[in-house]
Each structure stands twice: as structure tokens, then as C-alpha cells.
């Protein structure tokens, strides 16, 4: 993985990546505690909730917070390896494969293998997107033995202590095709991520976007109203992420109505009728 830094170009291996600053995370419920306990007990965690509700941020935050488990306080954070799942994600993509190098082949560990080896949090984002045969691969890892079979090499890998499997899952797209297999989901404890209550959401928006407290409050109010439209032409309510975007635009001096239009109304739906209704809610809430 590569990240760009202000001065120079820096290349680091996934498992070595650490967050260097505490991510902002506003706890909504007892999710921090739950996660800590799960980590302690090595119970895999399923984060359930709509997109943009803070799941990824939460995992990042937890990896930062749990650094003590490595006993290495100078080097902040448990390593976090994130895999964005997609429908073509194969077992080799996760576990690893042979590559040709000159006249030889070389084995490359996949992200899950790396996480297992170094004891990282392995975060499979949007797990339902992955093919079902791929999903099955993780089953042995969730057993008490915590093993990862690597068929191609005829090996079994035992997970290091700090390893934890975390997946996220959006129950919103309820469709037979994109449902999580029961045999899979029953191996995880599930933490629900709903949309935060108005005041907390406003706080998140304010901190993340640097807009004024009033604008943040209005955005959170708008979110509440728009979410009332779920299942009425809207597949999903507006995410905190979109609100943060709107807040950022407002903080940059874009008129709130316009900011909401581009960051919320148009982003949410292509249905003109629904767009119009949401715009009316926007214009009721914001003066300009």
C-alpha cells in the first residue's frame, strides 16, 4: 500500500501500516466496549449497517485504540488490513498466489494471509459483494483453532494472537442474491450501526467538515427528514458521509441549498420526483 505524504513518497508494506494520529470517532453506543471485549476473546465481529454510517471509521479507530495489545506502545495501533470486497474477488486474491519472476515462481501472500501472520485486524468491507465460494474460505479462521488453509502450498497457517476477523455488511440491499449465508453470519457477533441521533450526528458533521455548529445542526435535521423517505423511492437514507461532504462545501462558502443539492439530493437518487421532494425539504430548512 502506498500513501503520499507532504514531503516525500513513501512505500510501506500493508502489515506495517499504522495510523499515526488518533482518528476522530464519536461513540454512539457501547460499540467500543463490545469490540474491545470481542478482540480480547478473539471473537470475529460483523459490523452491520448502511453505508457511510461510520463502520470503517470505527474499525480504524479501534485499531488505533487497541495498540496496547501488541505491547508496543511506541508503534501506535494494531495493524489494520482492509479488503474491499467485490464480486470477482477470488480465494487467491485473499490468500495469495504464485507469480512468475524471471524463470522462477514466487509466492505472494494475500492480505488475509498477511493479517493472520502479523496478528492484524483483517477488515473485509462489504462482504456480501464477494462470491459465496470466497466467503467460505474464512470459515476455518473463525473456529476456535483459527487456521487458514493455504491449499496451493498445502499449508495450514495458525493465526497470530492479535489477529481478528472483522467484516462489514449492509443489510439495506435486501435481495436474495446479496444476502449473507447463514453458515457465515453465525460465526460473528454483530454490532449494529444505525444513523447517529441528531445531536451526535451534528457533532460529527461539525468536527469532520469544520462547518459551523448551526449548519451542522441543520444538516443533521435534514438527514433525519430525508431518512423518513426510506422505502419511499429512496433505497437508502442519506449517509453521515454525504452530510460531511455537504458540510465541507458549506464551510468552503458554497450556499447551503446548493451544497445539499450536489452532496445530498443528486447523490441520493435519480428519481426526479423524489429529488424534487428532497429539494423542497432542503429549501424549507435552509434559507439560502
Amino acid at each position, binding site marked *: 500500500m502506498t500513501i503520499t505524504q507532504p514531503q516525500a513518497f513513501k512505500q510501506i508494506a500493508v502489515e506495517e501500516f499504522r495510523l499515526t494520529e488518533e482518528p476522530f470517532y464519536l461513540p454512539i453506543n457501547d460499540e467500543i466496549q463490545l469490540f474491545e471485549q470481542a478482540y480480547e476473546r478473539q471473537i470475529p465481529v460483523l459490523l452491520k449497517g448502511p453505508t457511510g454510517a461510520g463502520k470503517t471509521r470505527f474499525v480504524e479507530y479501534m485499531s488505533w485504540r487497541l495498540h496496547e495489545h501488541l505491547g508496543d506502545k511506541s508503534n501506535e495501533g494494531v495493524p489494520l488490513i482492509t479488503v474491499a470486497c467485490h464480486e*470477482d474477488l477470488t480465494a487467491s486474491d485473499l490468500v495469495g498466489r504464485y507469480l512468475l519472476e524471471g*524463470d522462477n515462481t514466487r509466492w505472494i501472500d494475500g492480505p488475509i494471509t498477511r493479517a493472520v501472520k502479523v496478528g492484524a485486524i483483517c477488515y473485509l468491507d462489504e462482504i456480501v459483494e464477494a462470491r459465496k465460494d470466497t466467503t467460505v474460505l474464512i470459515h476455518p479462521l473463525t473456529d476456535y483453532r483459527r487456521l487458514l488453509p493455504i491449499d496451493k502450498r498445502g499449508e495450514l497457517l495458525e493465526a497470530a494472537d492479535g489477529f481478528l476477523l472483522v467484516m462489514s455488511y449492509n443489510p439495506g440491499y435486501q435481495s436474495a442474491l446479496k444476502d449473507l449465508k447463514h453458515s457465515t453470519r453465525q460465526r460473528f457477533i454483530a454490532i449494529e450501526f444505525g444513523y447517529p441521533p441528531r445531536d451526535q450526528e451534528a457533532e460529527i458533521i461539525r468536527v469532520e467538515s469544520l462547518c459551523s455548529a448551526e449548519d451542522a445542526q441543520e444538516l443533521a435535521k435534514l438527514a433525519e427528514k430525508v431518512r423518513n423517505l426510506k422505502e419511499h423511492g429512496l433505497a437508502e437514507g442519506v449517509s453521515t458521509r454525504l452530510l460531511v461532504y455537504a458540510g465541507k462545501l458549506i464551510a468552503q462558502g458554497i450556499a447551503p*441549498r446548493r451544497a445539499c443539492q450536489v452532496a445530498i439530493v443528486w447523490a441520493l437518487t435519480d428519481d426526479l420526483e423524489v429529488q424534487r421532494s*428532497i429539494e*423542497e425539504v432542503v429549501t*424549507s*430548512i435552509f434559507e439560502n
Partner: protein
Amino acid sequence: MTSTQDLIERFTPELRGFGASLPDEFAAALGTLERRLTPEQLEAWADQGVKLAHHSLRSWEAAAEYFRASPEIAPRIDFDTLVEWGETAAELASSSALMSAAYVKATPALLDLLPAEDLTPLANLGERLCRGNWKSISLSSLFYSTSPALLGVLTLSALDEFVDVIDALTERSYELATACLETAAGVFGQLEADDREAFLRFARAVTRASWADTRLYFERGPRLLQAVESGQRADFLDLAARVTTEIGRQGYPLFAEAATSLAQMDPADHGDMIRFARRLATGSPTSAMEYLKSAPFVRSRLTPEQMERWSEAGRDILFIERNAEGAEAYFRLESTRAEDSLAALSARVELSSVGTTLRLYAKALTGEQIAVRSTEDLVDRGIGWVTESVATTEGTSIYLPPYVNAYEEQRANFIAYKVFTTHQTGRLEFGAFSYRYGEPGTYTGGTVLAREANTPPPSHLEASDAPQKLAAVTPMQRYFDLFADRTMIAGLFTVVEDTRIDQVVSREYSGIREALRRLQSYEANRRPDVRSMGLQAAFVENLLRASLGRPDTIMWPMPLQSLLGQGLAALRVIEQPGATVQDSAEVATALYDIMERIPNIVSDMLKDDWVAYDEDYLSINPMMPGGGGDGDMGPLVPSGEEVAFQNPPQPEFRGDFKPELVQLLMQLRLQQQGLQGDAVLSPMSAEQLKQLLENSVEITISEMAEGDLSSTLGLFLSNLEKEAGTPQTDQKTQQGEQDGSGGVEEEPGPMEDLPVEVTWKYYDEWDFRAGDYRPRWCRVGERLGEEGELDYYDDTLRKNHGLVMETRRQFEIMRPETFRKIKRLEDGEDVDIDAAIEFIVDKRAGTGPLGRIYWRRNKIERDVAVAFLLDMSASTDEEIEKQKPKYDQDDDFDDDPRKYFQWLAQRRAKQALEPPKRIVDLEKESAILIIEALEAIGDSYGIYGFSGYGRDNVEYYVIKDLDEELDDSVRRRVDKIEPIRSTRMGPAIRHTIWKLQEFEAKVKILILVSDGRPQDHGYGRDRTEKEYAVHDTHQALQEAKRAGITPFLITVDKEGHDYLKQMMDDVGYEVVDNIESLPRRLPSLYRSLAAE
């Protein structure tokens, strides 16, 4: 002298033979005439008279008239004319003595109106009507006797034309001709002189085009014309005449409708309108009249300038596009273009076009499922609201006026709608209906309990025979029960609560604060005069003005200043952030107490003392009035006439507020759902309900229905129960809703059997002649198909076991190959050994630098949705052996469907024992087969049937919906696929398109199964037109293609090739030759269609 005597002696004996009086009349006439005429002339005159008497059997009667009239006439005409006159009389007598007598008798009066030389021409007019039979004779006699009156209103030449009209009528009906002639003088008399000839010209046209309308025209024409601006009537009549000449029998009805429309327009505009219509008439006479007919409707939506632009657009269709049919449809408002241009030009906003937006908006604001309806609906429902055009809510629906036209700009009108809606949703969102008895508010304590302890039972319960007081059903009722004057407390509570809602709304929704303020101000400027109200009403009125943010409009008697001051301070309490409905109740209570100290008098003496109350309002601090009755109530209140208290009218945007009723409805709903709202409240009894309704000030029973109170209540209760029992979803309406079956003494019972639930949707229809859609022309009612027996499905499966298995197998082969291996990738799932070896070989050989040695599987998902649309028209009842229809389709079916149904019914009865296979049976079998096949393959599919009669009633049956699982009810519904009525294909196709669009799938297919050409009552411009239906169907199929759907038609109509080619165009279709192969054919066809 002697000559006179001579003549008497000579003729008397002769004359005596005709009748006793004749000689005397003769003698009397001679006596007068001898002074004017020479003896020779006298003799000639006498001779002529006597000859007349001799002329025919009854011509002596004419002679008598001759003798009577002559003395009057002679002085006014010269002798030659007199002789000519006598000759005319004789000539007429040879046709009929009656005619002659009538003519002669009328002559003196005629001479008042005509120059002498016109006498003969007039006589000729009458003669023209005579054809020798007695009917014509009496008509022509009638003509003579009315001719003086007619000449009073018509010139001779006009009369000439009129006779033509009458003459033409006689060819149809003497009775009609007579009636017209009898009334003519009166009719023309009602018209202005300048219009009479034009009136006649049109009469002539009407008579030619449709003679029977002439009488109507005579009867109603003058009154219809009265409504037309006086200078314009002749032009209008000429227009009508021209139109009638060209288009025939519709002429008069169009004239009548156009005139009625003109009556609704400003007379000052008539001239321009008629001129415009005349211009249109040169291209399309019908358009001209349709334009006039539509004008009032269009005008109600557009300003004059906008209307001009609208009309010009229609004119361009006529003259530039040269599309007369299109222009007609445009001006008849039956074209999408007309509607679009109307909507684009109009500032007026219709609820029907913004309803969905507002519904979603309301849903967003409240989080509740809220229907947006027109206030017109509410009045119909009879649940206690009686005012139309005022917004309101009853908990699950918001009622809004059907349109808003207050501002010049569309956006402003829409915003007004939004403010209306926000106020209504505000009531729900901010808890206007959630009053809880006795609980304190944010700024006030709950005083009601203490008050209840001190309150005598409400006055209406005091009567000795009053039923014992029942527990209040709702908290609101219990609260209102505390006050002696319910009207007053309800009025105060409304003002207070609305003030609070407006405040919260403008605090929470800064975006509409400005619009709300504008609307408040607009309302404040339209308040009734406060000084003409009783003082109590004036008190409420002033509170209202303050609450509209316009304290500057307050007017109040100086001596009572401090009371209003206290009131305003109390009202301010409610304006503070965080105030709740509990506070509103307390503030209303406090205001009530203040008001009780004000006499409700209207007094002139007070006039000078009324002062504006502006200066300090803004500085008034929120404050509840002090505890006990303070002493400052001293001021002497001028006496005046005491009046009954009445609440001032509500500002429109706030609409009706009926918290008591809404709480009741909510309570009923909960009860209906088996939930108990408040633990405190036990299920309410009918008795309690009645009591509540009788006492509630919100319900004006008398306005609801005539009849005794108990039956009214019964009706009311059953309406309420219905209301509570049907959760409002805005798209669904129930069939057969409003029959007020509330039995007189009945306890409100459970609802009757649920009628079939029908969801209505409207679709445009393509009018190929106009080249435009007729907007919202057809109404499609979707309903679940009826369920029959399961046996049918199972039996069919059993009987066709072989076929079913075979089809299933074929489909299973087709099952998608879920993964496809893709080779030669740079990266992939695994190494492809062959490619790897090749690569290494190449590499060793020094070539082939690219390491494309991986493969991966790509997922291919089968994502097909198909909708089958089955023709359930009556003709599918045909037996398949005799496919050739027995009836002659061209005549019987179109002209009299009843006959056809009769024929079918007879046949059905005959075949009841051993039914031969019919087309519909094959459709059913095919349906079963295809179901089995598709279940094997896993595609999404829907099966629908359609029929109906007329454009308002296209029946659409769901056998299996696209997202429905196959189960026994689906199987049962297949059994009930039956021949019903007609075949209006267009709307059925459009509805299916809609269903497919709502469904998510990559490949969408629509398969229409039919047995013949589309036809339905009114599916065409007239009864015989068949092209219309074919074109509309064609258009609907094209719409499907545009929506990304593959349409396909399977028909068993072997003879149908002519229309099929036109209808299907580039859309695929197949004519199943051997009809019995349909069940076999359908699945295989589907395979080829879905393969792509």
C-alpha cells in the same frame, strides 16, 4: 245612393244563401264604401265579393272577411290595388277558403306594416307553404294570421327566408313547422333587430343539418344568445351557421355549448374570441367551436395574455402544421400538447400535479405515512369536515385545496402549497394532537384538574332527563368539557395552538420562514372588519392578528386595553421555544377566563374608542395572567346589543383544526387495530361516541345530512369507522366507497365484506389523427385475479404430463452457465497450465514477452423478467374447432355488444355440460406450462390478464405478480382466467410496461397473447373506426421498446394479417396457425426471446 240600394237588392238574396249574417255585413260595408268609391267601382267591388262567396264550398267565410275588412282597407289603398287584393283573395280561395279568409282578415293589420304593393308578394309567401293537403293549408293559414306579428319583427325579405325554413321543416314534420311558426314572432321579438337575420341564417343551416334541432334552437336560442355581448351575436350566429353547414348535425349542440361558455367569459372579450374562432373556422370549423367551449376552463387558469399564447399555439397546429385533427384535440383539451402548454403557461398550481411531491415532503417531515388529498374529497366523506377549500388534517391525510392561484408566479403558488402543507404536518410533527389531560407544559402548570373539581357538569348535561355523564373518550374532549362555551374554548385553543405551530415551524424551517410571513401578512390584510364583531369575537380576532405577526392591524376599544394586553402577553407565552400543546391548553384556558369578563356586544357608541394597538406589542413580555380575579376590570363597559358568540374565520393556510375529532379518529384506529391507545381509556362505546359527536363543536350535524339526528349520527359513525378502518394509502381507493349504508338505528358494526381492492392508474392514449396523446385518457384498475379451484391446475398438469416434462427439460438445459472461464489474463484465479507451458517455451525461445497465463471465472448472472399479458376479452370464449366467428364482427360487435354477450350467454348455457375447448382454455394451459417452465429456469415472471369496457374501466387482473412467489393462490387464480369483455390493448400494455419498469432486471420481455384485433367501446373516434385502436396499440408497443422492454405478440387470429403488419411494425409477432399448438409454442418462443 241608388246604386247602393241597387246593389243591396241585387245581391242580398244570393248572399242570404251563404249565411244569415252575410247580407248585413255586405250592407254595412257598402254603407261605408259608398262615400269613397264611384258607383262603378262599388259595383265591381261588390261583384268581386259575391264571386268570392261563390267560389267554393266555404269561401263565403272569406267573403265575410272581405266585407269586414274592405271598409278599413279602402281608404288606404287605391282602387286598383283593392281589386288586385280581391283577386288574390279569390285565387287563395281556390286553394282553400281558410287560407283566403286568414289572408283577408290579416290585411288591415298588414297595411300598418307594409306598403300596399307588398300585399301580393306576402300572399305569395303564404301560398308557397300550401301543398293542397289540409296540414299545409292550416300551416299557411297560420302564416297569414301571424304574418302581422312576424312583420313586426322581420322585414319582408327576412320573412321570405323564414318561410324557406318553415317550408324545409314541413318536409319532415308539420307539427314541428307549426310549432316554430307559432312561436316565431315571440322568438324574433326577443332578439335585437340586427341579429334577426343572422338568427334566421343559422336556423336555415340547422334545419338542413338536423331538422329536429330547429325547435330546440327556437326555444333556447334567444336565451343562449342573451349571454353573448350584444354587438357580437350576429357574428357568432354566422360562425355557428358556417360550422353547421360544414360539419352537419353537431352544429346546434356545439353552438349551444359555445354560447354557454361565452356566458362565463367577460363580455368585453367576446369580440376577440369570436373573431379568433372565425379565423379558426376557415381551417377547421370544429376547432373554432371547441376553442370557444374550452375558453372558460383555460381562462380560469391563465391570464388573458397567457391565454392568447395558448390559443395561438393551437392555431399554429391548424395553419402551420396543417393538422386539423390535432388542432381539434388541442382545443378540446384532449391532447398532451394542450395540457402541457396550459401547464407551462399557467401560474396556477394544481394539487394533482404536485401531490406526489407534497406527499413525499410531508412524509419526510413527519416520518409518517401521510396521504395528500384534495379537500374536495373530505367533504364527500362525511366525517365532520364541511368546509371546502381549506387545508386540514385528520391524522393520516393532509387535505389541501385542489389548486392555488393566489400569486402571479408558479413558484410562489407552489410555495403557498408548501406552507399549507408544512403547517399541517407541523401539527403532526409538533404534537398538536397529542394533548394529554392534566400534564403540565414547559411554561405553565396543569390547572385543569383543579378546574375540573370546580366545574359544574357542562350545561348540555344539566337537563333533568339528561343521560348520566359518560366518561370522556379522548383527553381533548375531557378538556373541552371543562368549559361552558365549547365554541369559545375551541376557537381560542385553535388560535393559540396555531400560533405555536407557526412559531415552531418558522424556528425549525428557516427556509420557509419568509414565505410563511408573507402568507400571514397576506391573510392579515384580508381579515374581516373587527369593529362589526361582538367584543368577544373581536378579542379572538385581535389575538389572531397578533399571531399572524401583524399587531399593527389590531383594533380594540380603549377602555378594555388592559384585558387585551393580558391576552397578548399570554399568547406570547406560547411563542417561546419549547412550548408544547400542554402550554397551549393552559394559555387558552387563561384567555377563556379573560374573555368571560368581556361582554359580547356590538356597539356603535364604541366607534371612537377603537384604537390601533401597535406601540407596545413588541415589548410585551410573555406572561400568564395573574391568579385570582384582579380588580382592574373596573372600567365601565359601554352597553350595546348583546350578540351570540361566533369565532372569526380561520386564515386559509392554517385551515381547519379539529383536535377533538382527530384524537377520536386516532383512538378509533388504534381500537380497530386491537391496540389500546391510552391505558386509561377503555374501548369506547357507541353511546360515548354519540355523546362526543353530539357535543362536539367541530361537527355541524345539520350540515351533514338531512333527516333526524339519530340517522345522521348513524351515517356519521359508520363513515368514521370506515375512516378508521382503512389506513390511508394514497394510491389505493376502494371501489364502491361512498354508499352511505349506515343503518338508521344500527350499532356501528364491523365493516361489510371488503370489496375487491382496485388500484387505479391513468394512462395517455395515442390519437393518431391528432398525432398527439390524449392525456390521462384511460383508467386501468389493477386487482388480484379471483381464486378458483386448485384442481384445475393440477388436472392440467396431469393431463399434459409429457409436455410439461419435456418443456421443463428444455428449460433446464437453458439454465445459465453461471461461470465462464476467461483465459490468457495477466492476472487471475490460477495458472492455466497450457498457457504457462507455452509461455515458458516461448520465453526460452526468446519470444513472447507477455505472461498471459492466468485464467479466471467470470460470473454471468441470468437476470430476466418477463410479463405475460393475456387477452381476457369475450371473444376468447370462441370454441377452437370453429375458429371462424359466427357473428359478423363488423356489425354486431361494434354496434351492440349486448347482443353479442347474449349470444355468448346462450351458447354458454348450451355447452355447460360438456364444454368444448375454447381459446381461453388454451391460454390457461399455456400459462400453466410456462409457469412450470419458468420455475425451472428461475427467471422472474408475471402473468396478467386484461379486459374491461370503455376507457374508464380497463380491468387488469394479476394472476401472478413479478415479485410474487408461485403458490397455491396463484394456481387458483389461473383457474379463474375467463372471457370477460372488450380488448383495449393500449392501456393494458402501458400498465404492464409500468410494472416492468418498477421491477429490476437486465432483460425485460413483454409477451402479449391475444386472439384478435384490439377493440373496445369508444376505442376510436367513432363506432366504426378501427384504425385508432390499432394505432394506439402500435404506439404502446413502441413505448415498451423505448423503455428497454422487448415486446412480442402471439395471436391466434389467422385472418389478422392486414392490421397486424401495421400494428406490429418492427415488433415481433407470431400467428399460431394450429391454435392447439399454443401451449407448446409459447415456451419455445420464450426461449428464443429470452436467449438474447
